[in-house]
């Protein structure tokens, strides 16, 4: 039996006196509780009984239950944004409403529509319309003012009325709508409103010199407004108001320093230097003994949070409390990411892509309580239990039952919390490593980069291919294949990007096109699994040389993913490695490797204990 972070796998086998193994049945179920804690017992019993049922055997026939020596590896995640966009004095509106009105550029002084009747003709005016104004009344008021000779050049609306207003004006003007906090637009200031034609983006307000021309700025002031231009790039509409000290700043948040200790030295790296710098520093202190964040900084908080969570889970139900200071972080994976965050000071819920760093940390403790689980399983089944074998060695042994695999073989166990690699050399020596970052981090990256705010949806995006619902009766898959349905698709998925789960299409709540969602998904998988596959294999490969590896077998839940195995195989292809998803026992796919390996090891041991027995045909 193998109790993993997310699944518990069992396999039943009969062993002949000569050591020949007959596999009778397998089963898997969700792991109950945190791996290595007594809570695991329920899941373990379910898996054993399931496997026995499939094998057509009774619990009373079982001689011994073999349990894995669970590697006490727990992982934690933290994410922190390192940039922040702030708009001061409400100088900019750049939220891209779906339907702005009119086209062109209008530059004038901001005047509330309530005061438009008293406005003297002369200078150009940008009309600001608060909530509660009907589109007919707005158009009438503007037309009346224009009739009196007031030069109304543009309008900014609270409601979703821009096209309706523009359609009713005698002389159409550019109109930006859906500005929720329109009452904060400063009045009596010079403002520019630009709306591009459908399918185009604004040209003037997203150009620093365009802004300089519109507002008559000197070179120094132009330097000052260039972040505004940058923030508006790619928009179809925008409003910029010139106020005495209004500004859009792109601030870097000091996140603090990460202190990495290992290999007899202690190195510091600024987290806002990005993932590459962190990983490069980490490589210089391998093997890592511990990692700390400067107290009082964001990174200090991030790591403290990871440590606290781990202390809690490990102490859960235990008589002896785990000291937070006992928990050493043995590996870190830093990933550059971006988080769409609402802009501080924005008037229309503007969102800016802020840079962020995600950290996965892995902790090793000496406190596995697998013996407790073994005792409980023993009570539950009324049989003997034995804890045996290092997980990595057992996984390699199980992987060797995959058709077409031979020594030297490396396995990559793509799990939820950590990515594990183990190598079995031709001579039979085994080495194993665990690196931080796996499926959970991928889910987290997808969740934050698409601003889903829903772990379940992010998990579905990770797990299933995408499609676009193109009509009530057909969808286009992400590879371009079109599929028709006899029954109409529900209206809530109409025209949406969906994930094709086993329960049918589920909408992904995003304004992004399918291509963008797909890119985010694949990039998240690449940055975690491909990076970690190479990193972990380098650590077990002789001389850190990937070319020294022959066979790489992918195991674990994420080896069942529809694209991760291909991405890893692609990345390793250049090193002349045979890489593929394992097929344990020729039937189990990437599952059950550790459980099968435990049986093989037990059979080999039982034969070795009887010197006269004929040599079993097990090894290799």
């Amino acid at each position: 039996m193998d109790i993993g972070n997310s699944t518990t796998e069992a396999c039943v086998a009969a062993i002949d006196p000569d050591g020949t193994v007959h596999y009778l049945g397998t089963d898997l179920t969700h792991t109950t509780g945190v791996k290595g804690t007594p809570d695991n017992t329920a899941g373990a019993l379910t898996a054993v009984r399931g496997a026995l049922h499939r094998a057509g055997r009774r619990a009373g026939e079982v001689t011994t239950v073999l349990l894995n020596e669970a590697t006490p590896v727990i992982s934690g995640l933290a994410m922190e944004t390192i940039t922040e966009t702030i708009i001061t004095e409400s100088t900019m509106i750049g939220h891209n409403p779906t339907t702005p009105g009119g086209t062109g550029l209008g530059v004038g002084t901001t005047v509330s529509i309530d005061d438009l009747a008293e406005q003297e003709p002369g200078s150009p005016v940008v009309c600001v319309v608060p909530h509660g104004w009907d589109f007919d009344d707005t158009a009438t008021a503007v037309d009346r003012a224009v009739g009196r000779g007031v030069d109304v050049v543009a309008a900014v609306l609270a409601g979703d009325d821009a096209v309706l207003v523009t359609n009713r004006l005698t002389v159409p003007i550019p109109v930006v709508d859906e500005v929720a906090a329109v009452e904060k637009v400063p009045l009596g200031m010079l403002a520019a409103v630009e709306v591009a034609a459908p399918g185009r983006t604004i040209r003037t307000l997203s150009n620093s010199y365009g802004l300089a021309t519109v507002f008559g700025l000197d070179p120094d002031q132009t330097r000052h407004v260039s972040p505004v231009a940058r923030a508006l790039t790619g928009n179809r509409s925008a409003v910029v108001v010139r106020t005495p000290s209004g500004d859009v700043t792109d601030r870097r948040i000091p996140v603090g320093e990460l202190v990495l200790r290992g290999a007899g030295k202690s190195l510091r790296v600024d987290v806002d230097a990005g993932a590459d710098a962190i990983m490069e520093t980490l490589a210089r202190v391998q093997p890592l003994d511990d990692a700390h964040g400067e107290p009082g900084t964001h990174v200090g908080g991030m790591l403290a949070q990871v440590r606290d969570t781990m202390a809690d889970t490990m102490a859960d139900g235990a008589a002896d409390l785990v000291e937070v200071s006992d928990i050493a972080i043995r590996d870190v994976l830093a990933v550059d990411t971006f988080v769409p965050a609402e802009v501080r000071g924005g008037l229309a819920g503007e969102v800016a892509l802020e840079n962020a760093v995600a950290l996965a940390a892995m902790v090793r403790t000496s406190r596995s309580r697998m013996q407790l689980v073994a005792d409980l399983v023993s009570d539950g089944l009324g049989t003997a239990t034995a804890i045996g074998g290092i997980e990595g060695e057992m996984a390699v042994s199980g992987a060797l039952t995959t058709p077409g695999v031979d020594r030297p073989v490396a396995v990559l166990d793509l799990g939820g919390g950590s990515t594990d690699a183990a190598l079995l050399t031709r001579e039979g020596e085994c080495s194993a490593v665990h690196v931080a970052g796996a499926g959970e981090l991928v889910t987290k990256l997808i969740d934050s980069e698409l601003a889903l705010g829903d772990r379940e949806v992010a998990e579905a995006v990770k797990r299933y291919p995408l499609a676009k619902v193109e009509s009530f009766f057909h969808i286009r898959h992400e590879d371009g294949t079109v599929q028709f349905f006899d029954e109409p698709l529900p209206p809530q998925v109409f025209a949406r990007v969906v994930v094709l789960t086993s329960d049918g299409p589920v909408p992904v709540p995003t304004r992004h096109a399918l291509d963008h969602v797909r890119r985010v998904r694949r990039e998240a998988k690449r940055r975690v699994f491909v990076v970690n596959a190479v990193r972990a294999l380098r650590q077990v490969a002789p001389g850190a040389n990937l070319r020294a590896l022959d066979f790489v077998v992918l195991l674990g839940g994420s080896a069942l993913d529809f694209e991760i195995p291909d991405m890893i195989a692609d990345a390793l292809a250049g090193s002349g490695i045979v890489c593929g998803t394992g097929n344990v026992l020729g039937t189990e796919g990437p599952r059950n490797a550790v459980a099968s390996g435990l049986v093989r090891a037990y059979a080999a041991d039982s034969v070795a204990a009887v010197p006269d027995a004929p040599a079993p045909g097990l090894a290799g």
Partner: protein
Amino acid sequence: MTAGDGRPAVLVYRHPDAPPAALREVCAGAEEEGVPTVVAPVGEAPAGSDAPAGGDATALAHAAALASRLDVGIGLDAGGMAVVHHAKLPARSPAASTGPGAAPPDWRRAGRTAARVVKGLPLG
């Protein structure tokens, strides 16, 4: 055959007693999205139209969708309930409905939804 001179438009079939405010908002919702509407009071439906001479909002909407060159119709009943329908959908399974007791924002949304069915944009 089709109402509204055969111009591509979302057809709105309304009960003669439908609130004028509802009709205004429904049409505004579609107009804001840039899709034209043609209104046909069911009592005065053009000859040859298969608009029912009454009925509930869903039946009106389905008839309007069948008559629309864009395959999209809106039905507005006497109580102000607005239903959006597509010609290819089953008669009793409309694309959207305001339900009874609708308010102006609901009517506006119904018009917008109809336009979005035409444009192939998410309905939300």
